[in-house]
């Protein structure tokens, strides 16, 4: 029954979101300070933002958060250590929280340069700690730049090859002398 109830609640909540999802949806407005962060493999990106209760008359419990992110693995980002630590338990009408750290994304090494899209969904509800409706959502983007380090430029290759060749010649000359 619980499961069915949750499906029903989720469907009611998601239907309008799927039809006309904005940058944020639901009664809790999720605003990223910067919804697009870019970095290179090895970098850890911290997404920050605020959440606001935009309902007219309802206090909402902030009970959880979900993230879906293309391209990345489960261990590459962390919600509990940030969002749930920083987010308030409840947001009263008109109340705002943040900006605070929502979550981090650590770009694995190596990682293909591209834009990766994700969604942060805040769960909760007006009834208490058991509510896990999606009451706010926002998209974000992780832009992974091309590797700027570790791959020498052609000129560097040339210098290196020249240096190595020089070393080789010196060593051969030394061998002949000995």
């Amino acid at each position, binding site marked *: 029954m619980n499961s069915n109830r949750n*499906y029903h609640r*989720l469907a009611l909540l*998601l239907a309008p979101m799927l039809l*006309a999802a904005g940058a944020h949806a639901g009664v809790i407005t999720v605003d990223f300070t910067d919804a697009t962060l870019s970095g290179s493999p090895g970098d850890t990106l911290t997404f920050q933002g605020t959440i606001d209760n935009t309902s007219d008359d309802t206090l909402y419990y902030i009970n*959880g958060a*979900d*993230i879906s*992110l293309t391209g990345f693995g*489960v261990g590459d980002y962390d919600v509990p250590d940030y969002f749930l630590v920083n987010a308030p338990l409840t947001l009263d009408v008109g109340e705002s929280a943040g900006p605070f750290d929502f979550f981090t994304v650590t770009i694995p090494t190596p990682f293909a340069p591209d834009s990766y899209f994700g969604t942060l969904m805040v769960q909760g509800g007006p009834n208490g*700690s058991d509510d896990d409706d999606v009451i706010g959502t926002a998209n974000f983007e992780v832009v992974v730049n091309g590797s700027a380090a570790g791959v020498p430029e052609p000129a560097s290759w040339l210098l290196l090859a020249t240096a190595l060749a020089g070393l080789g010649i010196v060593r051969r000359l030394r061998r002949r002398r000995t």
Partner: protein
Amino acid sequence: MISWLRRLLAVTAVAPAWMMAVTPAVPIPAYQWHTFMGGDTNDGANKPATVVDAYGNLYVTGTTTYPFNTYGSALPGDPTPGYVGYLTKISPTGQLLWSKFYPDYEPQQPWTDVEPKAITLDSAGNIYVAGNGNVNNDGTGGCFVMETDPAGNMIANANMGYSSYWRTCAVYGMAYNPADGYVYITGGASGGWRGGQPIDNGLAPNGSLPANQMGAMFVMQAQAVLGGIAFGWVGFYFTPPGGSFGYTYGQSITFDASSNLIVAGNDNDNVAVWKISNSTGAQQWESVFGIGGGFAVASDGGNVYVAGTVPAGWNGPSGQAPLNAFAYGGTGVAGNVAVVLKLDTNGNYLWHTFYCGNVQNTWGEGIALYGPSTVLVDGPGDLVGYNNAAPLHDTAPTGGGGHYLLALDNNGGYQWHTLYGVLRWDEASSIAVDPQHDVYVSGWSGYNSWDGDNNTLPLLAASGAASEIFVMKFSPATPTTTTASAPAPIVYSPNAQNITLSATVTSTSTVTSGSVAFTLLGTTVSASVIDGSASAAFSVPGGTAAGSYTIQASYIPGTGFAASGDNTQQLFISKATPAIAWSNPADIPYGTALGAAQLDATANVPGSFQYNPPAGTVLAVGNGQTLSAAFTPTDTTDYNSASGTATINVKPTPAQLVVTKTLSRDSVTHEVVVSVTVTNAGGTLAQNVQLTLGKIGTQATTTALPQPLGDLASGAAASTALRFPASTGNSGAAAVLSVGGTYTGGSFTSASRITLP
């Protein structure tokens, strides 16, 4: 003397052509006006002599049977029928300014009639008139010369030659030489000469004609001095012995560049030209050609041009054929034909040409140089053009006008001719050309009046006498020009722009002189006309507003062309079109509202953009969707509106996996059981969804992971249960449930505050 020759004893007095100002190109003179005055029942006596001053005033002298105070009107109370000499001044517009008359003192002695035959002006504008008769009634002279002031008042006069019962001298020509201040008079004499200091030129010892010489040309030097006329030398010239009929006489005088006299006339009925020293009277050369007479002479300072008439054709001294063959015209009846002859400064033959009349005799009686390369000749007769070229004008309705004006180039080539008068005896006898290249043709016309171009009536009609003195004026016909400028389209710019203004100037011939002044935006620039075109660089000031501006192109004429202009063309400054820069924005996921990141077109001028779709629009999923931007410039006067487009790809919303849970505790094992439901709230299929993480706090689930949940389409859900040991925590304890998993191409994580059951 044969009859045709006697009728030609007249003179043409013109200023030396080489003294006149010349212009590089002189167009065909066009008829201006003509008028009549005086009159006589005797044809030849009316033949006038003319000279023109620098201002275009014409002085006419000759003989009339009755004095006149206006054209064609007899002087009231004229008591003396018969010949009266006259001197008349006519304004450039044809108005008779004044007339002076010189009566016959001895009506019973016709050889004493005052018959002016030659006229010239000195450097002060005083008028010299010479002719036959006794001007001062001293009863001695057969010829006379007199000087009047510019208003025609007598200053001095003198008789020369001799007259008893029969006059033994005749004046035909006279010219003033500004180099020495003398007038030189020529004509014929047959002995008994009085006046001047005869010179021994080797022909007439001691200045006396040999007994067997029937007559000779005389040339005499004269000058007005205080109290009278002072004669200088007088010489007699002839080819001995003179024939029984034709004797020798000079008809016309001019000067070469060294002030030597060039005299054209008749030597024993042959066309003859002499060169005589002005200081000594010595003959330098005489050139005699075929039968006929030379009646007018002009000089370009070196070369000599002679007009005359011949009764038969002849070739040059070395057999040179005439440029235009001798013929008797349309009737084929023998008569006289005009001849034009050119010699070099040494009297050597260069060319000659004949022009006959159609039904009348033609004589060349007046000659003048017109510009540097045209020779004008006039005379009586309905002249036939070269190769029957039609006249510029002919007298309607009968055609075959009575007198002609002929233009040749200086190589004798035919240029044009024109006919006026009536088809009876009608004789142009004089040409005078003023410095403005106005041409005056004078003569007499018998029996009828006639019209000018386009049936223009004379200023004053003929009186009705049997013959009338006529004067015609022609002026250089300034060819009209047409100036056509070209439009100059440019586009507005805040910076100065260099453009080229151009115009073409056309006329009946290629316009090679003058300039075109272009006025645009209050600034005038000029450019010379070269081969009918002119182009000038013009700088349009920066920031000149878009619009149309009149280009005024004015042709400032060069010699021989009329001014013209054109203001029909415009400088069109069209509005500039702003440059819109707009790169295609990056792909956005579905659900992303259009904003500044996407709607970021720029323009190179100030203005505003209106986007379609506007900011805030959430586009449907799809690639290559068009975004358009309409740009409205702030300066709508000078800039057009503009637009730009960009395309954007809207990607489906990635899979959004939402985890919901229901917690319970196993009643037997007291394990915490978390029923996990994973719902795909995104727009794309999540494939191979599986749970890979389940923790409450740090306690990992005891359920084997991964737990496959299969594929989850958008909106689909799948559930599984995760079990945690009973030791995870006591009922009622707060904890954080962490659930995570993967799907093809992504991952999901969920963290929830829970209270343990």
